[in-house]
């Protein structure tokens, strides 16, 4: 068999098409590698550091060290844009690379530790990276002034050139980088007037597109180390079950299988190649101890949740006098129970990590996760190695949608346990299969809502009474804002409003899922409001406008989307439209969906109009892509998805055949408009998701007369 031979040393890593990932991570010196990891392959020689975020090489390339992981939402491009703007660089010289894991230097200013999530990457970095760019610019100018013997004030910088008009002197960044890096940074760098922006606000190609269109982009699963083992873990089919006994005879007989070990999470199979690891895992015979397992079905869990409503919950909002309003004379009341299922994130690349122990006992981890500091801590605790001896080498992630953001980093704990049990003599790639992913928990929790609404004689919505039960994602013992956000702070002028939350205990690990609480509160509020408006004889858009009073940014997107769709105008035969508007992560989005009933009686979504207000639009093309993607991701979930616990708590779904993803033939055409704004930029990764479910459900109610009380929609269609 002819295969590539690699350098025998463990230090040689081959990733993808022959890219060598160096591992000696001396501070501020990076081994040459792909433009997406470390420092650009085409950047020559020394990289001069300009504080924490900017590196300039003699060949003029400017590398922005991204403290946020790139998992598809475009932060590498966005962060580089912000720096390039203040630096007055040319876009062609910009590169981005993952910053090292450091909870201090690279902390998310919104979280206090290094982390990516909550659509905060641009929002929390905007000022910080503008200053980083302006600082580097000032240092370059100071170096030029000294070098040329001219006043700094006379020097200009534009599109990557530093010039002094009077003397005719001019230079690129690279030639001055070494000197500039030694200049004293200004205490308060001067920032541009946003009116002078030349890059921000304009479309420009993403930095990672070429690598991702040629198969050259490297993800964790693509990392290879010499002598590496592949490990897969057999997990139980009920949450909380543990290994009682295992017969590994057949597994160990599989050629290529090297070892089998019991770990806290299940049974690990180690092999020389992936197929052997999978085949070995399939040959294991395991008895599971179910004594601590969650054995309730999803139905039973939902029933238990509903029984909580008899008791008092945690107050999230209590305005006016709801009880009195419901007793009002001639009041019309409607009531709804809604059920939201467990949802898996199902990022395209399942979870994975490569762990390597160096000769000096230090540990390298190659992985792509949203909280690198948490990964480091998890490895440290499991392996008993000091954090200073652990390096996290951040990789691109093949999607996440929240899955790779875990406090305590349980998936890294598993990877580290697997590595530890192996004896750590050989590098180990720990990989999850799609089945592990769908059945692995850390779901968007199951939620039950009960809502009562009242309309008075004049047709005004006078009361809204809303209770929500589900797991506290933040593991709180009091109100968890993330269970009620989007409902308790609804923007509508309803005089009597009450929202209560109930925390529940279930043996299924819970996690945030693209747009967190808004995944269900947005749906509940926007579908129930739509019903109330219809009951009151009001138009869905006009009725909302009246209730939004002075909520100008909500109004802005709602009016815009109505105009785009020509709301009230003709709709093709057999179709209906639904609207929803929702704010999440300080970004405002309104969507209108045009829907018909397909041959099988299921919803077919033809077209979606979407208006977004996310403050300053850094890169309109990236924003539009995120909204398109958010619509598609949210739509797939509300149409098809649930992870269900069946009898005895057995997890039912396992792969993309029964945990369906939206496919291209089901993707509506999405038209996005961005509201011009000078407000500080806010995120766009998540806010496109919440409105699509209710917009489709509202259209569905128009089509069929049936309100949607339970997701996914496909269940209703077939029943």
């Amino acid at each position, binding site marked *: 068999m002819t295969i590539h031979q690699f350098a025998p040393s463990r230090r040689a890593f*081959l990733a993808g098409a022959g890219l060598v990932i160096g591992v000696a991570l001396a501070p501020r010196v990076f081994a040459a590698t792909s433009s997406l990891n470390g420092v650009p392959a085409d950047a020559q020689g020394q990289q001069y550091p300009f504080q924490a975020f900017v590196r300039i090489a003699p060949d003029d390339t400017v590398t922005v060290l991204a403290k946020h992981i790139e998992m598809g939402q475009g932060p590498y491009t966005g962060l580089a844009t912000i720096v390039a703007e203040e630096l007055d660089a040319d876009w062609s010289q910009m590169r981005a690379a993952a910053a090292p894991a450091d909870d201090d230097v690279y902390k998310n200013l919104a979280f206090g530790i290094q982390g990516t999530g909550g659509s905060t990457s641009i929002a929390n970095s905007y000022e910080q990276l503008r200053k980083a760019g302006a600082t580097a610019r000032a240092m370059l100018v100071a170096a030029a002034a000294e070098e040329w013997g001219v006043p700094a004030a006379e020097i200009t910088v534009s599109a990557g050139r530093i010039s002094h008009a009077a003397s005719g002197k001019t230079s690129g960044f690279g030639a001055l980088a070494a000197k500039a890096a030694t200049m004293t940074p200004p205490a308060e760098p001067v920032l541009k007037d946003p009116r002078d922006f030349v890059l921000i606000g304009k479309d420009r190609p993403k930095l990672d597109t070429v690598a991702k*269109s040629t*198969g050259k982009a490297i993800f964790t699963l693509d990392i290879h180390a010499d002598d590496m083992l592949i490990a897969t873990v057999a997990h139980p089919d009920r949450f909380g079950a543990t290994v009682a006994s295992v017969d590994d005879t057949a597994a160990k007989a599989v050629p290529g299988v090297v070892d089998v070990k019991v770990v806290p999470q299940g049974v690990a199979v180690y092999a020389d190649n992936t197929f052997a690891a999978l085949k070995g895992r399939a040959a294991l015979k395991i008895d599971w101890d179910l004594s601590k397992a969650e054995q309730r079905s999803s139905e039973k869990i939902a029933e238990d949740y509903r029984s909580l409503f008899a008791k008092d919950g945690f107050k999230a909002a209590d305005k006016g006098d709801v009880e009195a309003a419901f007793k009002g004379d001639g009041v019309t009341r409607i009531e709804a129970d809604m059920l939201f299922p467990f949802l898996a994130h199902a990022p395209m690349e399942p979870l994975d990590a490569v762990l390597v122990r160096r000769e000096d006992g230090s540990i390298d981890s190659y992985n792509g996760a949203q909280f690198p500091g948490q990964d480091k801590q998890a490895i440290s605790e499991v392996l008993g190695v000091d954090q200073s001896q652990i390096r996290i080498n951040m990789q691109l992630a*093949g999607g996440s949608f929240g899955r790779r953001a875990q406090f305590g980093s349980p998936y890294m704990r598993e990877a580290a346990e697997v590595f530890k049990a192996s004896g750590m003599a050989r590098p180990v790639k720990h990989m999850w299969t799609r089945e592990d992913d769908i059945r692995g928990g850390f779901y968007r929790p199951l939620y039950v809502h009960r809502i009562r609404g009242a309309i008075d004689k004049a047709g005004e919505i006078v009361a809204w009474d809303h209770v929500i039960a589900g797991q506290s994602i933040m593991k709180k013992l009091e109100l968890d804002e993330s269970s009620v956000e989007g409902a308790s702070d609804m923007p509508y002028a309803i005089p009597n409003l009450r929202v209560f939350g109930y925390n529940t205990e279930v043996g299924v690990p819970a996690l945030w899922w693209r747009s967190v609480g808004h995944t269900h509160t947005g749906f509940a509020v926007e579908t129930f409001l739509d019903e109330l408006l219809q009951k009151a004889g009001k138009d869905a858009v006009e009725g909302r406008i009246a209730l939004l009073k002075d909520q100008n940014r909500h109004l802005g997107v709602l009016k815009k989307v109505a105009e785009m769709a020509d709301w009230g105008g003709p709709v093709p035969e057999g179709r209906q439209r639904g609207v929803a508007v929702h704010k999440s992560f300080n970004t405002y989005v309104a969507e209108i969906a045009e829907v018909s009933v397909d041959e099988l009686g299921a919803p077919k979504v033809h077209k979606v109009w979407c208006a977004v207000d996310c403050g300053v639009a850094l890169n309109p093309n990236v924003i539009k892509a995120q909204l398109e993607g958010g619509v598609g991701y949210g739509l797939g979930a509300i149409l098809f998805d649930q992870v269900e616990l069946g009898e005895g708590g057995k997890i039912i779904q396992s792969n993309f055949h029964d945990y369906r993803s939206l*496919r*291209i033939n089901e993707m509506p055409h999405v038209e996005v408009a961005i509201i011009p704004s000078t407000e500080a930029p806010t995120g766009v990764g998540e806010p496109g998701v919440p409105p699509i479910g209710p917009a489709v459900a509202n259209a569905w109610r128009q089509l069929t007369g049936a309100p949607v009380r339970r997701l996914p929609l496909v269940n209703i269609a077939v029943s």
Partner: protein
Amino acid sequence: MVTFTLNGEERRFDGDPETPLLWVIRDFEKLTGTKYGCGVAQCGACTVHLDGMTRRSCVTPISMVEGSEVVTIEGIQGAEAEAVQKAWVAIDVPQCGYCQSGQIMSAVALLQTTPKPTDADIDGAMAGNICRCATYQRIRQAIHDAADTMEG
């Protein structure tokens, strides 16, 4: 022993004949552009060209590949491949990027048989390729754009 060509070069594999082509390509040949996404022919991340046709390499045992020509994302060439990749870059199709090798392999094969695909042709050829980032609208657009540039 299985003999086949990979991106134009002869290759031999003497491991377990049940090994899916995907893992031969990734683990043994160290070509990582072809991705794993499901292992059960549901997602298309592992799409390669086998004797000129798209193939889900995750469910193709290497024993079936004897004497065949396998082309991966690293080895695609020709007018269709060029037009597709250009169109992909021009409108920034990828988000996380993980599915995109498979998408491109399917799109190139489509254009090779159907130079001017309709939306329905695109649905037919691309519905086996999941993109969890839902970049579908741009995939559709890029395929139309690629077809246009090839015509022009």
